[in-house]
Each structure stands twice: as C-alpha cells, then as structure tokens.
C-alpha cells in the first residue's frame, strides 16, 4: 500500500515538473485592417475572451492600420481613431505598413506618440528631426517566455514603401532580408523569435528558407487569406484578408526551452454579435464626428451633376498641376448640390471610394482612346473632363462613339500628337485600358483629398452653366 502511494506521489511530482517545463505563448494578430473601425468592438471581445484564458496574450498588428475609411483617415488628427481603438484593445506592437506613411513623416510620428503600443520596423531609419519613435524590435515577457518581435516593411520598385515619395523624404530604408539577418542574435536572447512582417505572403514564404532561427512570421501586405497558418521551412506563417474578416490566434508550445508545437486558427470577426461595449461606444463617437459637417467652401449657385463633374476635374488639375484631367461619370455619386456650404461630408458622399489619383503621360490621341474606352465600360456615360472640352457624336443604332473632337480652352482642336500629363482616379484609369505607352502611376493621394484641398483653397465656387461635354445623340 505504502509503495503504491509513493509511486503515485512520484508520478504527480514528475507531472508537475513536466508541466512547469511546458509553457504556451498565445498571440492574437491582425493585418491590414485599413481603418475597419467597425470590426473593433468584435476584435475587443475576442481579445478580452482570449486574455481571460491566457493573461499573457500578445496582441500584434502586421501593419496598414489606416487608409480605407474617411471616418478614420479624415479625422482632425488623421488616423487617430485607429490608434485610440488599438490602445483600448491592448495591442502590444504594430509593424509599419506602406500606408502608415499616408499622412507623411510628421503625421506618422504624431500617431506613434499617441500609441500605447510599440511601432516596430528594423529596415527604416527616420531622421531624428521627426522624433519618430520606431524601434527595430522589442522583447516581450509572455508569462516567463521571452518573445522577440522584429518588425520589417516591404519596399517597392523605388526602394521605398509604396506611398508618395515626398512622404518618405529623410527616412532611410534598407533591404529587408539583409536587415533581418542582422538580428539573428535574438535567437540567443529569446525563447521565441517572431517576425512581424509587412512584406507579403510570397516574400514571407521565400524568406522562411533563409531564416531558420525565426519561429513564426505574422504577415501582412498581400491580403492573403490563409486558413489559420501554414508551416513553411519549419516557420509558422499567418495572414488574413484586409478589413478584418478574421483575426489569427497562434499558439506556440515550449517544452524544455524548445518549441514543440506551433499552430494557428483564424477567428471570424465579421458578422459576429458579441462585442466589447466600450469599443462600440468609441466607434460610435468617431463615426458621428462633427468634423464631417465642416464647411470647405461656399457654392454660390446650385450645381447639377455635370457641373459637379467639371468641379471634380478642376480639382484634379489645380491640386496636381496636371495639363488635363478626366473622371468617369459614374464616379460622381451625387446628382446635385444646393447653394450653400460644401462640407467634408458632401465630398465623402460625392466621391466615397477613396480612389487614388493616377497620372498618365499620353498623347491627345491616346487620351481620346482612353475616353472612349472609359465610355464603353461605364455604362455608355461619357466621362467629365478638365482643361479641355469634348464634342462627341454617338451612333444612334448602338450608342457607340462615332466621332470625338477634343478642344482646348480656346476652342481649338487639341494637338493629338502632343504629350500631356493627364490625371484621373484609379478606377477610371483601370476601366480605360488601351494600348498607350505609359501605363500610369499612382501619385499617392486620394481623389476626395484632392477635392477637399481644392474647395478649401477656393473658398467660393461658382460653376453655373459650366459644360465640359457637347453630346450629339
């Protein structure tokens, strides 16, 4: 009897020692929320629930937290609502996505100052004048397990993240892989090494072959929807689509200082009803922001749809210095505007899509082809134009363009061989595919921002009787 008792006691002691040697790290991660503030009450509920089970839960974002909802992006401090919501959820760190630069260096520095979480990016070095508190990595204590989190961001063809180049002046960017390799010492220093990556899924997979000392890559940028996570070259890689349809819960089991198990599951956020009420109130507060009632300019006369279209095209010209501009008719989403204040909210209703402005260098002939292509793909509505006017004749049989004449401001025919800098929005350019030489380039500002700036610069607008199209049906 005594022997049996002693055996059981020894087994229990062994099990206790074994359990003490076995630890778990739990990570809740998101990527590319793109200002989906409406998902935060649900995300907060998921974070609270997991934290109740795992008090040392780490909460991370792989970047591109902003850019996607004017409620966030047009706040007095642009993108502050997302920072406030992430603070409330209890985020520990974020990577720097290319869209983090959308409110320029000073805007990003200000947001970082307002963040209760760390901003991690090893392959950028901002000039000290910005006072931008970006760290390459941080070691977190997750219940006695040291987790080294290293941030990294993708560089585009220009050697900088994909945003307007002027927003990255005086920030030095380094090759991501070469930079990551400099931090291999984290393997010695930490129980777990996590790469918080805004590099994109394919790059994460490619890099995994060269980074055997990394345990997990929490990824973003390519908006790749994984079913939880995938193991590539022994590294667990996670990522979800943008706008928070899911968050990822990753678990790493550590026994005798070795990771013996890695797994990840995705947790649905969209369409779920249980929410964190504090976050729901915060979202409501931000959504009812009185700033959207702010007057940008006074419309001295009522405006019909074509006059609004002409105004949009004028905004593209005035705010970008382009020679010519055009805008698909379907992209002007209000039919009319009464005399009086034109507010931030009016601009959001008129142009709600957050399209980027795109410049194309093209000849007059190439522009004419783009206008016809746009007409054919926009339900046979001719686009509005700026810096010139159009006389267009349609074939009554099928509605196709039979004749198109482009006229300059003096009423003379536009030189079809001359190259012009033309600005439009990204949707319009995409639905105007032609064989032109220049494919175009995003200029890193959204069209509602161009319109907002134009109205503020004008103060008063009067488009009464303004026509940019003469249509013969």
């Amino acid at each position, binding site marked *: 009897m005594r022997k049996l008792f002693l055996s059981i006691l020894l087994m229990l002691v062994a099990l206790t020692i074994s359990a003490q040697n076995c630890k778990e790290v739990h990570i809740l991660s998101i990527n590319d929320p793109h200002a989906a503030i409406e998902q935060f009450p649900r995300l907060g509920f998921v974070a609270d629930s997991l934290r109740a089970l795992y008090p040392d839960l780490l909460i991370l974002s792989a970047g591109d937290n902003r850019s996607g909802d004017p409620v966030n992006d047009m706040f007095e401090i642009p993108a502050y609502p997302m920072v406030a919501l992430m603070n409330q959820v209890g985020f520990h760190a974020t990577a720097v996505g290319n869209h983090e630069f959308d409110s320029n260096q000073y805007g990003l520095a200000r947001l970082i100052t307002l963040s209760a979480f760390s901003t991690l990016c090893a392959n950028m070095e901002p000039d000290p004048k910005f006072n931008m508190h970006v760290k390459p990595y941080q070691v977190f204590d997750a219940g006695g397990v040291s987790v080294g989190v290293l941030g990294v961001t993708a560089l585009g063809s220009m050697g900088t993240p*994909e945003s307007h180049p002027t927003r990255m002046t005086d920030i030095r960017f380094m090759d991501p892989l070469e930079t990551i390799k400099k931090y291999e010492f984290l393997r010695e220093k930490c129980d777990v090494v996590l790469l918080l990556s805004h590099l994109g899924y394919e790059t994460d997979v490619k890099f995994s072959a060269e980074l055997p000392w990394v345990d997990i890559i929490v990824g973003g940028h390519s908006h790749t929807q994984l079913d939880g996570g995938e193991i590539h070259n022994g590294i667990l890689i996670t990522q979800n689509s943008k706008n928070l349809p899911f968050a990822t819960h990753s678990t790493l089991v550590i026994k005798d200082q070795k990771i013996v198990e890695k797994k990840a599951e995705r947790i649905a956020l969209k369409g779920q009803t249980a929410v964190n009420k504090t976050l729901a109130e915060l979202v409501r507060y931000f959504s009812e922001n009185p700033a959207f009632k702010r007057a940008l300019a006074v419309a001295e006369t009522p405006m019909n749809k074509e006059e609004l279209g002409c105004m949009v095209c004028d905004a593209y010209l005035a705010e970008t210095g382009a020679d010519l501009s055009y805008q698909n008719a379907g992209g002007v989403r209000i039919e009319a505007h009464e005399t009086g204040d034109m507010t931030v909210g009016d601009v959001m209703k008129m142009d709600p899509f957050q399209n980027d402005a795109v410049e194309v260098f093209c000849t007059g002939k190439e522009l004419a082809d783009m206008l016809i292509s746009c007409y054919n793909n926009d339900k046979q509505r001719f686009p509005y134009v700026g810096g010139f006017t159009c006389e267009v004749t349609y074939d009554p049989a099928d509605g196709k363009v039979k004749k198109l004449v482009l006229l300059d401001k003096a009423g003379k025919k536009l030189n079809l061989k001359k190259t012009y800098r033309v600005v439009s929005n990204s949707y319009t350019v995409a639905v105007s595919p032609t064989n032109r030489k220049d494919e175009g380039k995003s200029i890193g500002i959204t069209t509602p921002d161009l319109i907002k700036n134009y109205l503020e610069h004008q103060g008063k607008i009067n488009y009464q009787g303004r026509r940019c199209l003469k249509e013969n049906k």
Partner: protein
Amino acid sequence: MKLKVNRKNVTVFEGAEVRHAVLSYLALKGMDVRLADSLTVYDRWGHEIDLGAPASQFDMIKINIPKPKDQ
C-alpha cells in the same frame, strides 16, 4: 506593371491594387466591370486574396467568372 489575370496579360498603373487588374481584365474582355466587386480572386497557390491587395505582390491571379444561367 504587368500581370496575368486568368492567363491574359493585363497592364496596370504603378501602385495599382488587384481590383484595378480585375477591372482592366473585365474591360478588355468586354465584360461588365460591375462584376468586379462580386468576384473571388485567388493567388497562384489558390489562396483567396482581396481586391484591395497591392497588384505588385502578384505576377498572376485567377478569378472565377460566373457563367450566365441558361434561360
């Protein structure tokens, strides 16, 4: 910037999203561009990607175009 959409070469502007490649593909095929928002897009591995993903991340994507129902 060039990429393949359902094996067709599509040229998009620098800084474009997957949405713009899909729109250009539909326009080149003479299809209704309004379809774009209802399509599911996949990368070369078969992972679902969303329309807001940067086009520069992909050299090919696949979309399933629903066939018109028989009358």
